[in-house]
């Protein structure tokens, strides 16, 4: 019997190094002769630069040079627009160092390069800038009013993009509806906030003629391509390595100013250069996400079945749009969630503000979408006197209705087409796990009778995962018995080295420990885009599987020739290829790799190769000297994961504090490669989602100053705030890819604002409050429960 490796909770290959302090994160790299960078960043949200005087800074001890826009050569070009879109009619990207205007607090203005970071920061203090303040644009609702001050004067508008998506006949649906309910729903600004900030180390390797860059990026190939283009180097002359990366959550995929400036300094000064972001810089220099203001309405029939939805929303783009309008596009496409919405009008404006730019953060527009949809359904249930679970059940897409077309074009340009799922089954599993009927009929009334403010919420969601364009992988069996795997996707903790090894080990039936995965280094793999959009397992995993299957075929073919049997008579088991029923007649994978290579030198004592009579070239045309394959996988469109969560909360109305008493999760990401890793991903997403529902909000004041740019003031949940999670899995394989897998990276984050809102609203029914804004906080809850005091 073949050994099952795919699907097993195998311990991670990554861990022994990381547990013993032998990880290598970018800031861990210190090169001989290394110089250090510190940036002067704008203290103002919107201003013109009248003059910059760096002369005193240049004279400071240990300072090698100080650069402003005038000094940065090829980096004077505008930063790239990474993802254009036809509706992004007014894109705007920045300069790596501000040219004559700054558009948010934190924008890099000047760059000091010195013998130590301490000295570089000393010199930053000595730079003198004369500013001409411009009116800051912070409130996006005001920003779209006529006559509002403009973030970018030359655009003539603050509206970067105006998108309209229409499915069916929304106007007709609303005109014939039994009921129409409207809500204004707001999700505030937040950020991914990995515990490792960004960092870059760059050095020009003069021996090889290669620019070497270590970067905390989620997309080293993208950075490599950008640097090669910018500096006129061949791509092979730029090597970008994402070593161990301490969390990403979206904000580390970008081409940031520092990512071109630090390598440029290495090229120019011919010294290793390092920059490590400090936490304050991270708050004001690394992209944010989340703020959207939705005016949504739902039309239902008398039984609560959805006839149509209309949603118009404003999306805060921040000061620039380097990542296009991916986030609001995802919101628009995913808003219907697991429900049938036959008539749908969605419309958004992406609006510039003088704040940190917005790009995807775990969830990437989906928590907003789920919040809107689930709030609308809760409203329908409450207004029609239906159970909230029942309303969902009445509106689910049914298992026989796949593939199901939502009717809009998704973020990757492909149709928003759900490939598979079982949403009623998912909800049933959740309700069973919650013991829902007993909870609602017995437990809640009992607790409420004790004077406790307890409530239950449920929320369902889908997640488009595993989008293109493509990823690739090389798999090679080494003559020493190890299996080499290389991909272009780096990880930030998602266990790629383990799960990709499991895929290969399953195909070749070799020990998982013999599979060595190389990732995140452009010297190992040249093509691909990066780790984002919950796509690694789907897109990269599929490419790895295809390459491993090809290697398996090569091994079978070779063994068949050597053993003079048919391929069909061979089995692959126990790390060997042998004749069925005659295990002694066969080869190990190492032996097959040796056989494949006519250049036969080795120390190995078990060489199987016999001298052979001459029959022509040792490597005939079409043959390769290895068991090796490189394959690419390009999905036809996204594959759709789904989930349902339930929550029991209690609100302490004296303090406004929220206590999550129970949290149940059902998750469906198709086939699981490693359930332990899947659960870890769900746990982490949920914790961030809880953060976004009750703790984490970036507060800008009217002047565009970020008021809570520290961990003292921007509160992320600790172990005390995150409850124990009970997870159940449903496996609905994806028909789209060779593994049947769907992505899981962002899943947990998506439903949390929706479910917290539902549960808190249920807990506060005696006060008749409606939860329409996320995140909540103790102050808001206290005000809701003490209306007389506010």
């Amino acid at each position: 019997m073949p050994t099952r490796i795919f699907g097993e909770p195998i311990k991670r290959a990554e861990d022994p190094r990381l547990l013993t302090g032998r990880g290598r994160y970018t800031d861990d790299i210190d090169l001989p002769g290394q110089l250090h960078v510190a940036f002067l960043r704008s203290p103002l949200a919107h201003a013109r630069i009248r003059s910059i005087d760096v002369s005193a800074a240049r004279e400071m001890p240990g300072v090698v040079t100080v650069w402003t826009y005038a000094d940065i050569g090829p980096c004077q070009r505008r930063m790239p627009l990474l993802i254009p879109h036809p509706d992004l009619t007014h894109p705007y990207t920045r300069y790596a160092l501000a040219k004559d205007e700054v558009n948010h607090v934190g924008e890099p203005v000047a760059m000091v390069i010195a013998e130590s970071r301490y000295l570089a920061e000393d010199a930053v203090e000595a730079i003198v800038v004369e500013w001409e303040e411009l009116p800051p644009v912070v409130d996006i609702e005001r920003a779209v009013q006529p006559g509002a001050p403009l973030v970018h004067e030359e655009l003539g508008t603050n509206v970067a993009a105006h998108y309209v998506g229409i499915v069916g006949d929304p106007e007709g649906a609303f005109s014939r509806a039994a009921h129409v309910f409207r809500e204004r729903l707001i999700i505030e600004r937040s950020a991914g906030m990995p515990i490792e900030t960004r960092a870059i180390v760059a050095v020009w390797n003069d021996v090889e003629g290669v620019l070497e860059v270590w970067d905390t990026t989620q997309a080293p190939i993208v950075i490599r391509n950008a640097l090669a283009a910018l500096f006129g180097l061949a791509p092979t002359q730029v090597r970008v390595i994402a070593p161990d990366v301490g969390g990403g959550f979206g904000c580390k995929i970008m081409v940031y100013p520092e990512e071109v400036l630090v390598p440029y300094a290495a090229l120019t000064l011919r010294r290793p250069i390092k920059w490590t972001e400090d936490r304050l810089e991270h708050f004001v220099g690394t992209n944010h996400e989340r703020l959207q203001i939705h005016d949504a309405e739902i039309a239902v029939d008398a039984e609560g079945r959805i006839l149509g939805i209309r949603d118009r929303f404003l999306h805060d783009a921040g000061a620039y749009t380097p990542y296009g309008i991916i986030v609001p596009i995802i919101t628009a496409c995913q808003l219907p969630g697991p429900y049938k919405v036959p008539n749908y009008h969605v419309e958004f404006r992406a609006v510039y503000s003088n704040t940190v730019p917005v790009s995807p953060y775990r969830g990437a527009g989906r928590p907003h979408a789920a919040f809107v949809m689930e709030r609308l359904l809760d409203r329908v249930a409450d207004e029609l006197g239906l159970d909230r679970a029942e309303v969902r059940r009445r509106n689910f897409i049914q298992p026989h209705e796949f593939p199901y077309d939502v009717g809009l074009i998704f973020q990757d340009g492909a149709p928003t087409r759900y490939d598979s799922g079982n949403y009623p089954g998912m909800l049933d599993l959740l309700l069973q796990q919650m013991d829902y009927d007993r909870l609602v009929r017995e437990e809640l009334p009992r607790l409420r009778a004790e004077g406790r403010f307890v409530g239950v919420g449920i929320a369902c969601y889908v997640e488009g995962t595993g989008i293109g364009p493509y990823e690739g992988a090389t798999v090679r069996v080494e003559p020493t018995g190890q299996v080499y795997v290389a991909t272009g996707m780096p990880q930030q903790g998602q266990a790629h080295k383990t799960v990709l090894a499991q895929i290969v080990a399953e195909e070749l039936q070799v020990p998982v420990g013999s599979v060595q995965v190389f990732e995140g280094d452009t010297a190992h793999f040249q093509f691909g885009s990066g780790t984002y959009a919950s796509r690694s397992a789907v897109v990269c995993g599929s490419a790895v599987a295809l390459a491993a299957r090809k290697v398996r075929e090569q091994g079978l073919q070779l063994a068949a020739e050597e053993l003079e049997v048919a391929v069909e008579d061979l089995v692959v088991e126990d790390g060997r290829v042998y004749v069925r029923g005659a295990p002694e007649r066969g080869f190990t994978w190492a032996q097959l790799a040796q056989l494949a290579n006519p250049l036969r030198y080795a120390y190995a004592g078990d060489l199987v190769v016999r001298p052979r009579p001459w029959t022509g070239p040792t490597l005939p045309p079409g043959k390769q000297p290895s068991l090796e394959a490189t394959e690419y996988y390009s999905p036809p469109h996204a594959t759709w994961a789904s989930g349902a969560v339930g929550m029991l909360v209690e609100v302490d109305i004296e303090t406004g504090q929220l206590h999550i008493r129970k949290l149940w999760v059902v998750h469906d990401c198709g086939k699981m490669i490693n359930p332990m890793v899947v659960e870890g991903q769900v746990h982490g997403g949920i914790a961030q989602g809880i953060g976004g529902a009750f703790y984490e909000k970036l507060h800008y004041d009217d002047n565009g100053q970020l008021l809570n740019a520290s961990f003292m003031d921007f509160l992320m949940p600790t172990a005390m705030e995150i409850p124990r999670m009970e997870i159940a899995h449903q496996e609905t394989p994806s028909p789209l890819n060779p593994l049947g897998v769907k992505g899981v990276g962002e899943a947990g984050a998506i439903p949390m604002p929706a479910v917290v809102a539902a549960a808190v609203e249920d807990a506060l029914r005696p006060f008749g409050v409606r939860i329409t804004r996320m995140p909540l906080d103790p102050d808001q809850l206290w005000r809701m429960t003490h209306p007389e005091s506010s």
Partner: protein
Amino acid sequence: MTAVGTERRVIRVVVNGVPYEREVEARLLLSDFLRHELGLTGTHVGCEHGVCGACTVLFDGEPVRSCLFLAVQADGHAIETVEGLAPSESELHPLQLAFWEKHGLQCGYCTPGMLMVLKAFLAEHPNPTEEEIREAISGNLCRCTGYQNIVEAALSAAQLMRQS
């Protein structure tokens, strides 16, 4: 202009049992000293204002945030970092074993701080409850795991240590 704290002092510290003597700037953070002067990069820096706990080391056995200490304050003291946790090259500490077994880490960045805090905590609380563990690590932020498997790992490590 000379910045404050640039005068240099000689300090003697013992880190993971190894004595070091170094001349350092008075303003050098202990975290930077460990990482960039001694090359002990297992201690990570997440916020440099004493909140995230990633830089936690043991200072004469007590957990402290090395980003809030100056290297000169460590003069004459013993420091223990994650590099000193495993009993030998070939063995792991029960906490390390448990974190591996229970999937108590993802990106690994907060992990050294978690391990060092828990080492000190379990030394005083060999049989902790889940709630006590959650409180013990509440000064350490993790952005990947949702803490559940860290808590599991700590419970498991406590059990391993009681048995040994």
